[in-house]
């Protein structure tokens, strides 16, 4: 899957058609149209990012700031990790680039 480069201004939303269950170590998410029917497990900080996206589309920068505020850390410290995770979500098809949809 070709994924447009992620920037701080990229607005992301959860892909339409996902199923998810809470798990004792995180959240298990299945993309309902995934060609191989393989669920992904989101753990640690990934759970918070997924939940934030569940409240509606967010820019990458907005997500970083939201997570930073929630954990009382500097946004610049967590930005690389959050952005890497968002790229994983994009590659897996679990989130979509809002701009690419229109």
């Amino acid at each position, binding site marked *: 899957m070709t994924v447009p480069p992620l920037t701080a201004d990229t607005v992301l939303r959860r892909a339409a058609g*996902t199923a998810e269950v809470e798990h004792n170590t995180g959240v298990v998410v299945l993309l*309902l*149209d995934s060609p191989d029917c393989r669920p992904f497990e989101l753990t640690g900080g990934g759970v918070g990012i997924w939940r934030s996206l569940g409240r509606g589309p967010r820019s990458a920068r907005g997500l970083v700031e939201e997570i930073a505020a929630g954990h009382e850390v500097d946004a610049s410290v967590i930005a690389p990790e959050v952005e890497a995770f968002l790229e994983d979500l994009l590659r897996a098809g679990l989130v979509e680039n809002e701009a690419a949809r229109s």
Partner: protein
Amino acid sequence: MSVVSTLDNASAVDLASAWVSHHARALGIRALVIKGPLAGRLGLRAERVSADADLLIEPGRLDELTAHLSHFGWYERPAGRVPRIVEAHSVSMIHDDWPIDLDLHSFWPGFLGEPAAVFDSLWSDRLELSQANAPVAAPGIAAGILILVLHSLRNPLTQHSGRVDTLESLRQAAVATLSPSACETLVARAAELGAVQTAAPFLRLLGAEIAPDADPSDELTLWRVKSSTSGNVGAWLLDFRNAHGAQRVRIAQRALLPAPSDLRAQHPELPPGPHGVMLGWFRRWRTGLSEVPRAVTTIRRSGLPRRKARG
């Protein structure tokens, strides 16, 4: 983030129910999630972890759905050659990365109405719910209870094994969810679905007066044989009774000494090697032969004409 390597059963059942519902909807096939955790959340049974995701599929569309699902790595679980009293009503599909079966039912045994009409009735009364945070449809409360009741009555000797609900627990669930008119509601719904006689032991438990059918249909008679006998003994005996000569010998051989491949398909839990096959045969003889006298009596009393039995 990682691909899940060991999916637990509870998560798998919820996700798989949502997944099948999604694909059925995309194909324009109506599907109802039955039994399982949804029934627990609706208060119809105690919540427990299921080993399968059960869905009732619109009659006539099951093959189309299973063919579609096979593109995603799901394949039909091999089944041994076993006769059935009530005709085969479901397909079990498995996936190498999933710990559960998809049990896809083309009709529900015990609903003796015409299958398409029964499904239409179930669909018109459906509940639109969320499972694994995705939309699914489930039968209405009364129909959902009757599905569990018929499942329990169809497997009489497992009622105290914890694998099916007891009639008493279902009675309590019915009273809790449908009061003050649980009995009337369930009798009326059973009538619409052709289940007054098949569900009669449960409806009587609720206080309904259900007279036995003096002139039962063959389907009802077969249901009574099935609900009075354990496992497949009754089906084997009916097959044997309807056969002649060498055919009878082959049926007896398949019943008593099934081929190892058939035995393992029916009992995947058997240990590997010849020892496992011997163990399977031994268990079969022990449980099956002890059931023969009761099954013979039940079939004899049923009055089923020889050629009406279904294999």
